[in-house]
C-alpha cells in the first residue's frame, strides 16, 4: 500500500485557491521533494497531509487513512517540521520535549537521547527564548522525531542550521532515517539528491511531477521564473 495517495486535491483560503488538482503517489520509504516559489502551496500541502487542514476537494490517503474522515489514524504517526518550531518559548528544550513526550506517550528517556543526538544536552535547561534560531531548529527536529513517526513532513528543514548542525540532524531526518518523507525545498541540488519523486508547484497547481532520476536542475529553475 502506498504511504501517500493524493488525487485531485484542492484547498482554498476563502476565495483564494492555494492548491488545485494535485495528484501524486508515494511508496513507503520514498522521499518526495516539493519545489516551488513562495506562495506556491508547498506549506499548505504539508499541512493537509499532517491533518491540520481539511482538503476541500479530491482524495487524500495518508498511511492508509482517508482524510479528513480517518485523521485519527494518522495522528501520532506523522512528524511535522514546519516554519514554526511548535515549541513554547518560555519553556526549556527539555521541558518542551517532555511535554511532547507525554502527549505522544513516549518515555522520558527518549528526550535525553534526542537532546544528545542534536547536541543540546548542555543547553537543554535554558528557556528557548534565550537560544539561537539554529539551536531552536535542532530542538524542533528532536520534537518532530520524538515519537518515531513513519512519515516525516519537512518544510525547509535545514533553515537556520549551519553545515555541522545539518550533519548532526541528518540521521534523524535525512535519508538514513529510512522514513517516508515529504520535503519542501528551494535547493535544487540538495533536494534532487534526496528525492525519489519530485513535485513542482506553481500557483497551487502541479507544474512538474516525475521520478527524480528524470528531472534536472533546469526544470526546477523553470518553476521559479
Amino acid at each position, binding site marked *: 500500500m502506498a504511504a501517500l495517495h493524493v488525487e485531485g486535491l484542492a484547498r482554498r483560503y476563502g476565495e483564494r485557491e492555494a492548491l488545485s488538482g494535485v495528484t501524486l503517489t508515494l511508496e513507503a520509504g520514498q522521499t518526495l521533494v516539493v519545489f516551488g516559489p513562495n506562495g506556491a502551496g508547498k506549506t499548505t500541502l504539508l499541512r493537509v497531509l499532517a*491533518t491540520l*487542514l*481539511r482538503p476541500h476537494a479530491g482524495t487524500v490517503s495518508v498511511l492508509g487513512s482517508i482524510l479528513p474522515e480517518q485523521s485519527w489514524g494518522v*495522528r*501520532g504517526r506523522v512528524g*511535522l517540521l514546519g516554519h514554526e518550531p*511548535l515549541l513554547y518559548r*518560555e519553556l526549556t528544550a527539555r521541558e518542551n520535549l517532555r511535554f511532547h513526550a*507525554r502527549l505522544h506517550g513516549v518515555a522520558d528517556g527518549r528526550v535525553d537521547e534526542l537532546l544528545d543526538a542534536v547536541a543540546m544536552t548542555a543547553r537543554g535547561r535554558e528557556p528557548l527564548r534565550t537560544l539561537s534560531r539554529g539551536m531552536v531548529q535542532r530542538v524542533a527536529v528532536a520534537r518532530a522525531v520524538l515519537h518515531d513517526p513513519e512519515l516525516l513532513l519537512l518544510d525547509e528543514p535545514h533553515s537556520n542550521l549551519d553545515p555541522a548542525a545539518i550533519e548532526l540532524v541528518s540521521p534523524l531526518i535525512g535519508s538514513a532515517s529510512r522514513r517516508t518523507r515529504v520535503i519542501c525545498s528551494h535547493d535544487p541540488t540538495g533536494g534532487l539528491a534526496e528525492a525519489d519523486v519530485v513535485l513542482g508547484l506553481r500557483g497551487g497547481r502541479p507544474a512538474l511531477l516525475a521520478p527524480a532520476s528524470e528531472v534536472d536542475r533546469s526544470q526546477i529553475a523553470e518553476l521559479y521564473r
Partner: protein
Amino acid sequence: MSRTVAALLRKELLVELRTLESVPAMSLFAVTTFVVFHFALNRSVVDGDLAAGILWVTLLFAAILGVNRLFVADADQGGFDAFLLAPVDRTAMLVAKVITLLAYLVVLELVAVPAFALLLLGPSIGDALPDLIGVLALGDLGVAVIGTLVAALAVRTRARDLLGPLLGLPLLVPIVIGGARATSPLLASVHPTAPAARWLLTLGLYDLVFGLIAYALFDFLLED
C-alpha cells in the same frame, strides 16, 4: 486522558510562572478597581446589594483579562498544531484550560476578596466567608467554562482582544446576576442571611448547561 490533562496543566503552570502575564494583571486590576470605587462612590463602606454588585462586576472584568490570554501562547507558538498532531483526546485541552482558568480565578479571589473587605466592605466578612466561598466556586466554574469556550473561539481571529469580551460578557452576565443576588444577603449590615437556594441552583444549572455545550463544541473549535 488524565495523563494528557496533567501534561497540559504542567505546561500551563510553567508558562504562567515564567511570564506572569495573567494572574498578576487580573489581581492588580481588581485591587485598582476597588480603590477607584472607594473614591468614586464617595463612601468609605458599602454593604448588601451594592457590595455584592461591586465585587462580582470587578471579578468579571478581571476574569476577562485572563480569558483573553488563555490561548495566546498556544496560538502564537504553535501549541495548537502540536496538540492536534498528537494522538490524544481533544477534550483534554478543554479540561486543562478550564482547570487553569479556575486556578487563576481562585488566586485572583485570594487577593481580591481580602482587598475588597479592607477597602470597601462595611460588615465583617468572617461569618459570610464559608457561604461566600461556595457562591464564588459556583460562579468561577461557569466563568471558567464559558471563558475557555469563548477564548478558543476568539484566539484564532485577528480581533481576538475585542471578540473575547464581546462574546464573553453577554454569556457571563447571568453569572454576575446570580452571583450578586446570592452574595447580597451575605454582605448585609443588618441580619445577614444565607444565599437563596434558587440563585445557587441557577448558577449550578448555568454551569451544567455550558459545561455540556463546551464538551460538545470544543473539538470543532480546534478543527480547521
